[in-house]
């Protein structure tokens, strides 16, 4: 029996001590080993960029990685944008306009996100074509082909949901058309549409739903499918070019890192620099005016959806579903089934003539449909006019938004416009007595087409008519001016000239002045700008300053004097409000 001391407390030899003595390493090697022991970084690196490239690295094989890289750029810029974006019908446009026009680099980050998504669709499309050409969808890679198509579909959903988020005209109308198409699908269409847009009409929930899908749901789905896609890619390895013999494949095999990865990074940066050029030249992504459900906007989808948009033109009425559902559905199903339909003996495109022909035909069809759509708009003056109007409107809206958005958001931005502000004052202070639409006022003149020749001429013919002073019921007011039409025209032209209108006819004006004495106008009206009489002084009548004076105090002697019944607004409105209001009244002139 062992009665000696039990060596419980004796330190166990540590892992380090058990190791053979190694020569001194430099600190970088030590750090790498230290991290590797704990984190297994080499395994991660191997999972992402390990493996070999049979037949050697190539530019052909860069496309998948470039698409993944672009996705990461989208994710990073998307997170930055989400830090400043507010998803609701009231705040979406306002917060995007704030990002675009007021935050430093906001336009750049948003531009990178928007043009980057276009680049991602292009690169993903090229990746799909490369896989078709190389026969990389064939046995045993059927699963990865289907995962790739799923990623393509998710990319399309990203684009669709992201497009609505600014809630501008373009996004609103494009999304509305897509939602309606969804709703037209048989059986479940209506229900799907209501769930996606969060109700029977577009509103707050449409924006929150689109944002949650775009920023939470789709990224999660995309990450999972991408991981599976990369896993299967690593399991099966790249599909080398068909022309290489087994001996060549062996002889030219290179490790993917760094020979393929350097190409991936190079092509990726090249694509990104094209995106940056686009962003810089357009000063970021476009932002149109806030969504206006009452407008007749010329809705056009983004470039990648143009072929479908054009296809729809050829199927009308009940046949529309052919373009919106059946053709895309058949093409999608054929693509999914491709690996199982293709029974060719090798990857060589020469023996897969039907697949190659279908791919070329598909590309030509997409190109031709887009070209027709673009060409038609390019030759349509109505489209050009609509675009020009929208550009002006967007420019105005974005300038007005910088004064601070009203809480109602969206279209309320136009209230920052002085004329619209004046409209509010008008509604509160003026509309009780005056009309604006040619239906007459309750106690004063109607200002529809105010100060036009026709308005003045109408006044001269019947000052006490319902559109003029009739409703004011002025005691001993102005009476109809007798005269031939030619004489009345001349008098109207003379009054018209006093408004400051640049297109007054001097000959007629002179003739009108000559009639003042004959028609006895001067017994009530002075025309020196100072003199007081029963009626207003005609000098400068109807000019901006004159209308401001009337609004301020129409009872001044040189204006309506004791006959005046209109309240005085000086002191109740600020001078700038009175000026805005005067401009508003003068802006009612639409005729000449």
């Amino acid at each position, binding site marked *: 029996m062992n009665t000696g001391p039990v060596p419980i407390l004796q330190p166990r030899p540590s892992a380090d001590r058990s190791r053979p003595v190694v020569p001194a390493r430099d600190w970088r090697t030590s750090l790498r080993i230290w991290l590797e022991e704990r984190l297994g970084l080499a395994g991660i690196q191997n999972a992402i960029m390990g493996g070999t490239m049979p037949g050697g690295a190539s530019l052909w094989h860069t496309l998948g990685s470039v698409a993944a890289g672009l996705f990461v750029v989208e994710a990073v810029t998307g997170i930055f944008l989400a830090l400043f974006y507010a998803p609701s019908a009231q705040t979406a446009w306002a917060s995007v306009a704030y990002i675009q026009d007021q935050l430093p*680099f*906001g336009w750049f980050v948003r531009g990178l996100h928007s043009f980057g998504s276009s680049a991602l669709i292009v690169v993903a499309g090229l990746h799909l074509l490369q896989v078709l050409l190389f026969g990389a969808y064939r046995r045993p890679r059927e699963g990865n082909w289907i995962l790739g198509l799923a990623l393509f579909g998710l990319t399309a959903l990203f684009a669709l949901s992201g497009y609505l988020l600014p809630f501008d005209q373009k996004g609103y109308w494009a999304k509305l058309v897509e939602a309606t198409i969804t709703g037209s699908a048989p059986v479940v269409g209506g229900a799907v549409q209501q769930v996606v847009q969060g109700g029977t009409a577009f509103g707050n929930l449409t924006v929150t739903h689109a944002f949650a899908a775009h920023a939470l749901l789709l990224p999660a789905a995309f990450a999972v499918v991408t991981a599976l896609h990369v896993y299967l890619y690593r399991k099966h390895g790249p599909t080398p070019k068909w022309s290489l013999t087994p001996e060549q494949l062996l002889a030219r095999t290179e490790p993917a890192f760094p020979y393929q990865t350097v190409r991936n990074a190079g092509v990726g940066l090249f694509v990104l620099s094209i995106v940056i050029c686009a962003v810089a030249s357009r000063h970021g992504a476009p932002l149109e005016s806030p969504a206006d459900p009452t407008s007749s906007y010329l809705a056009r989808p983004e470039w990648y959806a143009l072929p479908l948009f054009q296809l729809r033109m050829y199927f009308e009425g009940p046949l529309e579903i052919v373009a919106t559902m059946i053709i895309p559905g058949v093409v999608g199903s054929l693509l999914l089934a491709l690996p199982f339909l293709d029974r060719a003996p090798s990857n060589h495109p020469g023996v897969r003539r039907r697949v190659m022909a279908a791919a070329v035909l598909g590309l030509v069809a997409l190109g031709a449909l887009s070209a027709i759509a673009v060409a038609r708009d390019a030759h349509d003056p109505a489209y050009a006019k609509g675009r020009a109007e929208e550009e002006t409107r967007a420019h105005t809206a974005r300038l007005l938004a910088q004064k601070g958005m009203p809480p109602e*958001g969206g279209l309320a931005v136009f209230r920052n416009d002085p004329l619209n502000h004046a409209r509010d004052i008008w509604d509160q202070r003026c509309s009780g007595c005056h009309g604006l639409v040619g239906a007459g006022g309750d106690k004063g003149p109607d200002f529809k087409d105010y100060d036009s020749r026709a308005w003045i001429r109408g006044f001269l013919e019947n000052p006490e008519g319902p559109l003029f002073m009739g409703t004011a019921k002025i005691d001993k007011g102005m009476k109809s001016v007798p005269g031939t039409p030619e004489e009345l025209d001349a008098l109207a032209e003379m009054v018209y000239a006093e408004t400051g209108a640049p297109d007054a006819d001097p000959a007629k004006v002179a003739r009108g002045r000559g009639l003042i004495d004959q028609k006895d106008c001067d017994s009530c009206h002075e025309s020196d700008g100072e003199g007081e009489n029963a009626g207003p002084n005609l000098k400068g009548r109807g000019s901006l300053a004159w209308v401001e004076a009337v609004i301020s105090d129409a009872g001044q002697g040189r204006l309506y004097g004791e006959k005046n019944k209109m309240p005085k607004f000086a002191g109740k409105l600020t001078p700038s409000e009175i000026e805005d209001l005067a401009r508003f009244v003068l802006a009612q002139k639409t005729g000449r």
Partner: protein
Amino acid sequence: MSERPPDTRRAFFAMLTAGLGALTAAIAIVPGLGLLAAPLRRAIIRGAGQPLRVAAAEDVKPEKPIRVTAVGEVQDAWQRLDHVTVGSCWLVRATEGAPIRAFSTVCPHLGCGIDWNEKTGNFDCPCHNSSFDLHGRCLSGPSPRGLDELDVSADGHEVLVRYQRFRTGSTKKEPIG
């Protein structure tokens, strides 16, 4: 140019991969950091600092502080609000005929809302029990300074207060925003 030996070429490509990748990452990240830093360079909420009508002078009785809210125009990021509560303050008249003073209700300690305690005649913070007298001086508790006094002006019989916020938790009264 002579052929590099494979090892050098490999190391060069590895470095190039890392370099190009880092450049791509920088392009995505750096402008975003500029965006993120925007609130450091400009006030995101603007509009405080105007004298705002808060009460009628005769409503402020000696030793009976009243709590009033300052309502005014504020620009919050993209939004302009014409009629929102900018903040609130206590109006105090220490004795009959003394001038009206205004103290922010924000406790200088950690920003809780100061309350008037009628029993003790002091201002008390409900969170950490700082106590202040009618002149805003700190009597007890963790507050690093007395109550923050706001500029008061009179317009006829009306009391106007220039509402401001100050950095909490420091002995110095530093305006923010």
